[in-house]
């Protein structure tokens, strides 16, 4: 049973990561694989540190993160407006439902050829892909959250003579926060994937591209270790955002309020 307890600790992720790295290194060192396909950890970390040292990777990561923050913000605001209108009006709700069923299953990357024709290839095109991938899951979660609110809560709002907008802010959002955070988490993950895929297809727009461009560039210059370095950075950002940012927000809101 000692092993089981060991893996219940918060640092268990770290242990797994170390084990995977060990397995990786063993394969790279002893298995009959080409170093071009399976570079050793030493090569990967060297590529990673070189890119960080000359500033390239840091700028490109910031570039991608800025893009995704903009996209998330636009997406969440749009989702909020559409969900708010859906709560207020049944007619609008059916419109939102239709939009979600049309666009939610549609990958942004499939729209790329059209996006190039509509808005070109710059940052705005990548932003469009991010907003597309953020908006629909966010609306789905917001609507589900608002629908799950018991009728009594609504009536409390009526008793206080809140306006629609007031009851939205003071009752609906806090009550549906579990759903909103889940939506935000999904949207972030979708947006992060979208920005990297879009960058890998569009390449750099301007002097520096994002992290997807970094990987693409490493690939065409056949620097496999560099490709893995880029992927490591993406994983690191993913874990940081998930565990620290969302973890913190959840701890201070829904967990503290006993909602989850």
């Amino acid at each position, binding site marked *: 049973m000692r*092993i089981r307890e060991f893996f219940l600790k918060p640092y268990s992720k770290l242990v797994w990561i170390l*084990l*995977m790295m*060990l*397995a*990786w290194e*063993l*394969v790279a060192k002893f*298995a*009959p*694989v*080409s*170093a*071009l*396909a*399976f570079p050793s950890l030493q090569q990967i970390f060297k590529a990673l540190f070189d890119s960080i040292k000359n500033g390239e990777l840091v700028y490109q990561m910031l570039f991608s993160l800025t893009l995704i923050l903009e996209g998330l913000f636009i997406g969440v605001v749009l989702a909020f407006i559409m969900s708010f209108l859906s709560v207020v009006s049944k007619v609008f709700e059916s419109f939102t439902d239709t939009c979600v069923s049309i666009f939610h299953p549609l990958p942004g990357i499939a729209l*790329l*050829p059209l996006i*190039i*024709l509509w*808005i*070109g*290839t*710059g940052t705005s095109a990548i932003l469009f892909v991010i907003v597309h991938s953020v908006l629909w899951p966010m609306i789905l979660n917001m609507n589900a959250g608002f629908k799950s609110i018991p009728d009594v809560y609504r009536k409390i709002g009526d008793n206080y003579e809140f306006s629609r907008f007031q009851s939205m802010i003071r009752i609906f959002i806090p009550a549906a926060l579990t759903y909103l955070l889940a939506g935000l988490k999904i949207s972030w993950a979708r947006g992060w994937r979208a920005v990297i895929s879009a960058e890998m*297809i*569009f*390449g*750099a*727009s*301007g*002097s520096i591209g994002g992290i997807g461009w970094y990987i*693409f*560039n490493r*690939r*065409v*210059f*056949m*620097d496999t270790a560099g490709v893995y370095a880029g992927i490591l950075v993406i994983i690191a950002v993913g874990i940081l955002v998930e565990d620290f940012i969302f973890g913190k927000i959840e701890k201070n809101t829904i967990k503290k309020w006993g909602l989850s």
Partner: protein
Amino acid sequence: MKKLMLVILMVMVLFSTACTQTAGEGQTIRIAEQYGIAYAPVQIMKEKGFLEENYPGIEISWEQLSNTAAIREAMVADRLDVGFMAIPPFLIGSENGMEWKIATGLSSVPTGLVATDAIQSLSDFSESDRIALPQPGSVQHILLAMACDREFSDPTKLDNNLVTLSHPDGMSALLAGGEITAHFTSTPYLQKELAETGFHEIISGQEAFGGQFSFIVGVTTNKFHDENPELYDAFVKSVQEAIDFINQNPQEAAAILADVYDLSEEELLTYITAEDTDYSQTVKGIQTFSDFMVKTGYLETGISNPEAATWENVVYED
């Protein structure tokens, strides 16, 4: 502790089985099939069955791969014996440890930088103009760098203006009239763009290079060349026959290709018989490419002489 060991073992098995599969041996040849006027001899070789004739009993597996990076990766994974590509991506692969050499030249086709009429020369590009080309390190990118080197003594002058787009996407972006104001492309996209009003060619590939060069060459892995010398010879001979067929019977070749490429026969005939389209096994310009790429830092060592990068049968010119 036993449980933990078991888990580790399973992870390791998972990793190792995923990476050690090798393709079936025997008399097969795996060739990357690509579309485009520059690859016409490959298509003719396939349609006319030249290789089957020269090496009876051979099983040819034609693999569909969309770009040079994918071909390179398939060759690393031992999924491919023969690939066709431009010289710069070949040199990048060699430098990074790919075990391969050039087996044959294939074609030289028109290539060039098309721009809107507002841009008359390389010096007219402003910071907000964007140039579409297939990818960094591609022959189009290196030709653009060569042109910039000649004009401004700065090969990276326009590197911050690049956008990576495939040929068809690049064409639609250019014609859509957004921020993409130029496109470094090749046959047949080059002719299609030039046929539209408002676009013209700023510089051709040959002007940028400063002479003739092979646009596409055929590359085989060391393993294929060393283990199947007879099959290798048959392959090279078949490419030659396909090239001869196109040069001697352009009309018939156009008819065959028209079906494969879904273009009209007349259109294809003009492309394959165009003055600056040339199908030949001679490898041209490899040392010039290598020296330029070393000088400008795209390569570290490059090649000392063309023989180091080509198999014994190859005739080269520089």
